[in-house]
């Protein structure tokens, strides 16, 4: 997998965010047979589209929800403007309109110069099923999680390796992660035992106290959640736009301490960084920067 955008809420370019990156949520997953997935279509998907080879023209995009920081890059995804591309977009269902119509609220005037029907690629829209489904050699599972509006987390399993992606999630809303049973904790079933868990860790505890109910996690809850579900590795994701590289370095240091207190090894925890690549394998994942 490769992280093309790890920022939450709004793109945050600038000299203070060059290391962790300013693009919003997008993670490329390449399955063993070359099948391509994009987890969310924040502004990071623009770079992903530019980096894809000519032959890579069938792409499944799994949207967790339709907030702007998760779809804004769709209009700038190069394969969407290539008539040889086939793009399948998955996302949460909602009672008011189809996934296609809800995305068209963005890809339409006055927000966009083109309409969905004008996209040159072959594009289709699917509400994520409530049962598992297959894409290439992987099994995909989606589940609703606590966030503002219809929101999914995804679990992609191939062989005995699994990636669980829950970038926007507030599992402690109305629940005590240290006390309540599993039945009352959002996301537990989806994330249990994942090889890699990518999870919202946007806020400090002080910030969270002013933002309860906004749909995001304080770092301490992300750590507790990851330990609780016994994820093999945690990648803290959806960095707050106000958090600079220097701040995130310090924040990461505090996370390692807390993680250690919870019984985790420092090598099992990292903060998502743009362009970071990870091999998701049952063995301890290996990382390389590009």
């Amino acid at each position, binding site marked *: 997998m490769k992280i093309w955008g790890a920022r939450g809420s709004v793109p945050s370019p600038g000299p203070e965010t060059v290391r962790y990156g300013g693009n919003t949520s997008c993670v490329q997953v390449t399955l063993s047979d070359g099948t391509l997935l994009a987890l969310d279509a924040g502004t990071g998907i623009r770079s992903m589209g530019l980096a894809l080879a000519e032959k890579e023209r069938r792409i499944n995009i799994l949207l967790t929800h339709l907030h702007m920081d998760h779809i804004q890059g769709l209009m700038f995804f190069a394969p969407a403007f290539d008539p040889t591309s086939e793009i399948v977009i998955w996302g949460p269902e909602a009672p008011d309109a189809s996934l296609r119509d809800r995305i068209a609220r963005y890809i339409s005037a006055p927000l966009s110069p083109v309409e969905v029907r004008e996209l040159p690629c072959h594009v289709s829209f699917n509400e994520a099923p409530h049962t598992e489904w297959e894409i290439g050699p992987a099994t995909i599972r989606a589940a609703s*999680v606590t966030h503002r509006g219809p929101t999914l987390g995804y679990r992609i399993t191939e062989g005995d390796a699994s990636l669980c992606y829950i970038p926007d999630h507030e599992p402690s809303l109305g629940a005590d992660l240290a006390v309540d049973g599993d*039945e*009352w904790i959002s996301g537990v079933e989806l994330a249990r035992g994942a090889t890699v868990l990518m999870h919202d860790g946007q806020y400090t505890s002080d910030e969270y106290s002013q933002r309860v109910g906004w749909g995001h996690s304080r770092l301490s809850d992300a750590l507790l959640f990851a330990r609780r579900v016994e994820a093999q590795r945690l990648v803290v994701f959806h960095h707050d736009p106000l958090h600079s590289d220097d701040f995130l370095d310090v924040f990461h240091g505090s996370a390692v301490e807390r993680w250690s207190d919870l019984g985790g090894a420092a090598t099992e925890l990292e903060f998502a960084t743009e362009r970071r690549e990870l091999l998701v394998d049952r063995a301890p994942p290996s990382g390389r920067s590009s």
Partner: protein
Amino acid sequence: MSAGQRPVELILARSLLATLSTPSFLVDEEGIVVFFNDAASVLLGVRYEEIGRMGPEQWGTAFGPLDRSGQPVPLEELPLTIALRRGHPSHARLRIRSVQGVESEIEAAAVPILTVQRTHGAMVFFWQVDER
């Protein structure tokens, strides 16, 4: 959703009810009481944590509900049953009995918890009424 975790809609409903001073309880899609709040425990005479989840027969035996003549109200006529089975809100005046045997007349309103695909459960709000 496989065994273990509740649907997120029930998780959020429980969170809401736990913060309210309106007596209320939460049932899952099978009509099993999976939570009631502290305000409800005042009328029921017991805290949820003391008795845990209960099926319809259990809470029917424990708390009634009864009609004005003191007879048990058939399950299918209860607001929560209507909310679960028909998917719309329902309201009724009932009598309930606390675990100490104290009867109270209440108004009860049940609201189904619906998502696009199905009914996940219901919330039932109730309050004691002046019997005069």
